[in-house]
């Protein structure tokens, strides 16, 4: 299985995603340049974190017009897996791959911390190796991570079981304090209609090496691997 990691101007977690895939997962990975029109035959696209175009207008607003995004959208329409992390999530929303938007954190500040996430849906291609309700500890690092959408969208996400991760406390409870950015319904990650695009603000690629902390993000990548192994 081959992962393609898009580098936009200002991406800075592309390297981390690459190392996670290659060093920890043992899979193949390649960087995809934002000006390119080629997905180079990759199976999974990762839209990585960072500050594409400095997040200067709105996080993700400019990057979604990059030439490569046309190919990424086509890949997604074909059912190809897209893992959109942090700034990637913001880009995916701007590009219409996922509903809603990510706006400034409720506390208005950038937050860097390790937070707890509860796995809400273990049946997606990104979470099949987790147990439902599992509590993960994963780093976040963002200033615009508050997930918002209109009521109808929120209801649809809920009804279709498309909320994949929620912010919770260490025991798995959804509390006000456990929601770091004020996201609606404590949403930390959602999948697209077809289930093949996952957007999440926390950084699973930073939680794969036991040297750096609990490797709770590794199963997410392994879920993707397991899918094609079948």
């Amino acid at each position, binding site marked *: 299985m081959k992962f393609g990691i898009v580098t936009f*101007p*200002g991406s800075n*977690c592309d390297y981390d995603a690459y190392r996670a895939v290659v060093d920890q997962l043992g899979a193949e990975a390649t960087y995809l340049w934002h000006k390119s029109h080629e997905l180079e035959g990759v199976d999974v696209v990762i839209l990585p974190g960072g500050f594409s175009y*400095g*997040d200067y207008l709105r996080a993700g607003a400019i990057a979604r017009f990059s030439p490569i995004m046309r190919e990424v959208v086509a890949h997604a329409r074909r059912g190809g897996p897209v893992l959109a992390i942090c700034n990637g999530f913001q880009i995916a929303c701007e590009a219409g791959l996922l509903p809603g938007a990510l*706006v*400034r954190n409720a506390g208005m500040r950038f*937050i*860097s911390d390790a937070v707890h996430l509860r796995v809400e849906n273990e049946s997606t291609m990104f979470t099949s190796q987790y147990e439902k309700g599992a509590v993960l500890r994963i780093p976040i690092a963002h200033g615009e991570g508050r997930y918002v959408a209109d009521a109808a969208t929120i209801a649809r996400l809920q009804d279709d079981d498309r909320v994949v991760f929620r912010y919770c406390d260490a025991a798995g409870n959804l509390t006000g304090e456990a929601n770091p950015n004020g996201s609606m319904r404590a949403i930390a990650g959602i999948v697209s209609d077809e289930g093949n695009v996952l957007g999440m603000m926390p950084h699973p690629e930073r939680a794969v090496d036991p040297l*750096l902390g609990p490797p709770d993000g590794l199963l997410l990548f392994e879920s993707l691997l397991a899918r094609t192994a079948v």
Partner: protein
Amino acid sequence: MSNVAPRPGDPRITPALVAEHGLTEDEFQRLVRMLGREPTFTELGIISALWSEHCSYKHSRPLLRTLPTEGPQVLQGPGENAGVVSVGDGLAVAFKIESHNHPSAVEPYQGAATGVGGILRDVFTMGARPIAMLNSLRFGSLDSARVRYLFAGVVKGIGDYGNCVGIPTVAGEIVFDDAYETNPLVNAMCVGVMKESELITAKAEGIGNPIIAVGARTGRDGIHGASFASEDLSEASDAKRPRVQVGDPFTEKLLLEASLELIRSGHIVAIQDMGAAGLTSSSAEMAERGEVGVTIDVSRVPVRESGMTPYEILLSESQERMLVVAKRGHENAVAEILQRWDLTAAVIGEVIAEPVYRVTEGDTVVAEFPGSRLVTDCPRYSPEARESDAIVRLRETDVASIPELPEEADPLWTLERMLSSPTIASKAWAYRQYDSTVRTNTVIGPGGDAAVLRLRGSNRAIAVKTDCNGRYVYLSPRNGARAAVCEAARNVACAGARPLAITNCLNFGNPRRPENFFQLSEAIAGMGEACRALGTPVTGGNVSLYNESPSGAVYPTPVIGMLGLIDDLSHVTPATWSEDDAVIVLLGEILGEPADGLGGSEYLARIHGTVAGAPPKCDPELERDTIACLLECIRAGHVRSAHDCSDGGLGVALAECAIANRSAVVGAEVDLSAWADVPLRELLYNEAQARIIVTVPESSLAEIARIAVKHMVPPMVIGRVRTGSGNLEIKHGKNRALVAPLDRLAAAYHDAIPAIMEGSVESAAVLEQAAVTTV
């Protein structure tokens, strides 16, 4: 030599204009002698920047020469953009610290942000990829609204810039003291890694090679920043506000990637940041290092605004710009790499054989200096050094006789008050705004003693930390500077690292005042002594003098940026307790010795509002032995945690071991009854140096004792970790004990700064004004 004539429209050179440029009459005469004629306005501007302290080190160079700069690990000592040391396995680390004090005093957000940007460029222009940022900050008391605004703005500026570029900010220190009220200190440090073979220096070479300006366009911002950094802050500084530089971290990220690609491409011979004094100093320094001449045509420099004069173009400190010397004929290849990163490049000059520094505007020569003397031939001063009588008196104050406050009858009150001192309290409010885990190398992030970053491609890691206690340096400069080096060394050692080398940032007052120059020369002497004892050469640094405000100079603050090497990842050691029943052992300076005075302590400052007494004596040999002992214990696998005593002494250090990790607080029983004849406040709050609290399993005790004896370092067993206990209990003789509930200690330590900052008007102002996006 060419004919240099004044440019139409240039102001006439008058004594007033010369003074405005910060040149003395003597310096002006020196310039006239150098040129053999009157300077033009442009030349006056150039010299004013180059002869500023910031660029010329005219008051500090002779002193800096006394520092040890060599060692087998040193690949590049002082003099380049950053120092470089070998860390084994063919890898090298480049690191440097720099100040951005005055810009941050005027505009905290942009001042701090551009400080981060500048030091990043210093590191990646050496060929190293930045992997970590640190900082060292000083503010006045948080009781002041202006200080809260500065603090909030500086922290946000550091965070926004580093986060956007994608370099983790992993460690630092923040001290609050009235001495820094109007003149905050903002020092930023960057650490990068590279293969040893990738090292590049900023030496212009090769006659006929083109000089290329890369990156952002040149605007009118920050003109004369270097001389601004070299004068006292005053009311008039307010009028200098248009000098504010605005940072563009997005362009910086592109520059970083493009520069590393350029360096690896083989198309260039040198690259340097256009930092302080912009194009002027970068081009002059590159020429000087390469012992060649250069010619620059300002009309070819891409500008942001129309009608910019040569003077303005040369002295602009617009950010995110680099100067590159390319190989002749490789201009297109260079341009291509830059284009890929959406950056522009313009050939603006050439390396020439003729030994001159020449600036033209089209065909007209607007400035010309003979030889490479521009940089080397600057004035040198050794002003009078005399210790202030007032400080001598302060140092000789008998602080032991200061009576306890009535509240201190309850020792828990005192401990809580110490832990909630903003200088001691958790700085998580600040570092939670810094991405500390991007690039996935951060083994220990902010919150421990030193940050630890793994070195990919090896089983090694580095530990880094900045430190300085300005109060010690104020009361006793030589000893205080020694202590700064030793504290930084202790901190990296606690994380499991062998201290390897330092960078430093000398934040002092106006050197023309004898008491300030005394502090500067003594501090540099003390720093050198400690570095020699510890075997940590100085590989670079920065001098920031004139840190004064109407109320006087700041505490002399020689901030040390320490780099340590961990040979094996299994040696990485946490600061906080976790293992039940582990034995708490104190290594180093014996408890209850005369060194245990309260002079210069945080206790006196916080509880009694007093800055006086002789600060703890720093003995670099004892520090060296204590560190060696600790490292041997760690390497032998005996140590579960290590944390040194510093601000707030043993009492605060014990509490930190218990509660610094708030989600896993751990109690302990400590027994200091063996020292029952020493007053409890002295035992707990004296800040004796060379003291490290380690926890070890019972079974290791004998081994620890053996290792300690070998290093002639006294080990003192003082207690046991009790994971089940909700208290930190400290016995002190019969019937006397401090039983401190962990939740109260944790609240004091962790909530102190948020309680002041969250919801403050100044915080809101910073968040509003710095809003890049306003969704």
